[in-house]
């Protein structure tokens, strides 16, 4: 078309080429965006679409639910089917485990990092090496001994068993993050407080903890999500229906013959919502905390 006429003028041609290149770049970017979007959302779409199916059309093989309905969610929320009869109880157990894990991790992590970063103790390198070692042990490798260890402690089939496991594997990360974040708090503050006669405990409570708040948000969220993601230890350590959590119930669904898949997916979607909300609420803190360890490596 007009390309031939415009081609005679070199200046315009280069501008034209630039426009072309930009258009191709934009198209490539759009395609890349779409691919990533499809890749990311397909499994999540599966979850939601199965949850929206009617009871009798789960096995119809439709890509889109023919008659989407929220009935599945409603059944789960009202515990109106024997499979989901204890949904809120299980949710409560999951929540207790998550929150207690977060609180204990924060308490132990801050106390330890306070000593490591702010007090001169001769053997502190031993503590940080112990933490580092725990950090690099794959969690599932200790599941077999943990089963018996918890029995010996008399903790099997209590929520405490799972809480302690999660705390064990969350504290090393907490200690690293707190230590690195704490390094940005000037030690002169401690010195000043000490001159005023404050004990280490008072410094920890009044100076250290308030200044550590951003890191504590990140680590608390991390611990909560770690516990929320757990399956193996809950499955092994919690056996009675009374102590069951949502992931264990989902695992039982999967292994039973007659599983109401729409209810199972509705449960899964509901269970997945809190971490998503938490993640988006604390996103800024999270990425700061997550990357602090990695970036400068």
């Amino acid at each position: 078309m007009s390309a031939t006429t415009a081609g005679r003028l070199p200046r315009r041609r280069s501008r034209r080429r630039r426009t072309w290149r930009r258009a191709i770049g934009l198209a490539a970017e759009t395609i890349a965006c779409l691919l990533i979007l499809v890749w990311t959302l397909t499994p999540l779409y599966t979850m939601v679409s199965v949850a929206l199916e009617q009871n009798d059309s789960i096995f119809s093989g439709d890509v889109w639910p023919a008659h989407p309905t929220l009935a599945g969610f409603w059944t789960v929320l009202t515990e109106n089917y024997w499979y989901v009869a204890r949904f809120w109880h299980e949710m409560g157990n999951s929540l207790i485990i998550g929150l207690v894990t977060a609180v204990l991790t924060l308490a132990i992590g801050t106390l330890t990092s306070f000593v490591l970063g702010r007090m001169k103790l001769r053997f502190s390198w031993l503590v940080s090496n112990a933490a580092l070692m725990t950090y690099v042990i794959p969690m599932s490798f200790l599941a077999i001994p943990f089963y018996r260890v918890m029995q010996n402690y008399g903790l099997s089939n209590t929520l405490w068993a799972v809480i302690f496991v999660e705390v064990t594997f969350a504290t090393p990360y907490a200690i690293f993050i707190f230590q690195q974040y704490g390094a940005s708090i000037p030690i002169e503050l401690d010195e000043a407080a000490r001159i005023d006669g404050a004990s280490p405990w008072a410094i920890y409570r009044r100076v250290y903890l308030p200044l550590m708040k951003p890191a504590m948000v990140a680590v608390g969220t991390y611990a909560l999500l770690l516990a929320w993601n757990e399956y193996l230890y809950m499955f092994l350590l919690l056996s009675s229906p009374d102590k069951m959590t949502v992931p264990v119930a989902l695992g039982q669904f999967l292994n039973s013959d007659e599983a109401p898949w729409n209810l199972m997916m509705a449960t899964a979607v509901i269970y997945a919502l809190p971490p998503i909300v938490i993640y988006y609420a604390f996103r800024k803190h999270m990425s700061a905390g997550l990357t602090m360890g990695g970036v400068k490596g």
Partner: protein
Amino acid sequence: MDATPLDTATAALARGRARLRGVGRWRFGRGGPHGSDTGWALAFLIPYAAVFVLFVVYPVLYGLWLGHAPSSYRQLFADPVYLKTVVNTLIYLAIGVNLHLFGALMLSGFFMRKNWRVRSLLLVYILPWAVPAIPTFIAFHWMLNGEWGLINNVLYDVANINGPSWLNYRWLALGSSLVAYIWKWMPFWTVIFLAGRMAIPQELYESAAIDGAVGYKRFTLVTFPLLANLYLICTLLSTIWTLGDFNTIYFVTGGGPALSTHVLATLGIRDAFEVDNPQLGMAAVMSALPLLIPLVIVLMRKLAKSQVQL
């Protein structure tokens, strides 16, 4: 903040004083005026020490004791399932780890783009990591079903192909679970690498461009050398975590068909609790130690060194 010379001087003075006080503390040692501090420090360490002794030292020792009998290793090595499991585990480590880390490295470059579309895409892209593992792996399990799973439905609707029963063939099942694994963990590493790329000062690229580093050379000559250490640490960490990954295989393939897609982590649990032979299970897990221990040593050195640099 503009630091005046006075500020700098005061700060230097304070530092010097602090250092002097530190010296004094060491000179006085435990019995000196700061002796009570040691008591405080030890008291502060009690909770962590208790956790470490009760829930790391004891389980580790107990695990080593469980897995010490040579007879369980003979039984393990005679098991044909074990050989398949080792192969699967190595495939997971060799392909899974490298594929998703390399993908994350590339994608982190894509997410460096500053326009609103890419930025909002990042918010969605991170979802697999934020969503709990169990629900999504169950969704994968469903998608892969041969009769009513999403993948075969789409294949049939689009291309009129009757897709295979993905979970009924060893390599298809293993490959599918690898895809699920990559889907779940690539976003996390992408965020890490994204932060790593953002820490590279822009001036470096500008001066490199003057020296002729444009196009792909920007990546090979500037970005990658600067990220190489981070990439190595991430590879080591990811290898260790992948070795311990239980959920992906357990929920996506369940170890099937015919126990052919187990990895060491799932086989250990199966042997210990389904076969009811904890010694055998622990032997399966501990047979990963010759691989795990060197990795851990290298990683601990790397981490300790980079902490010094901080």
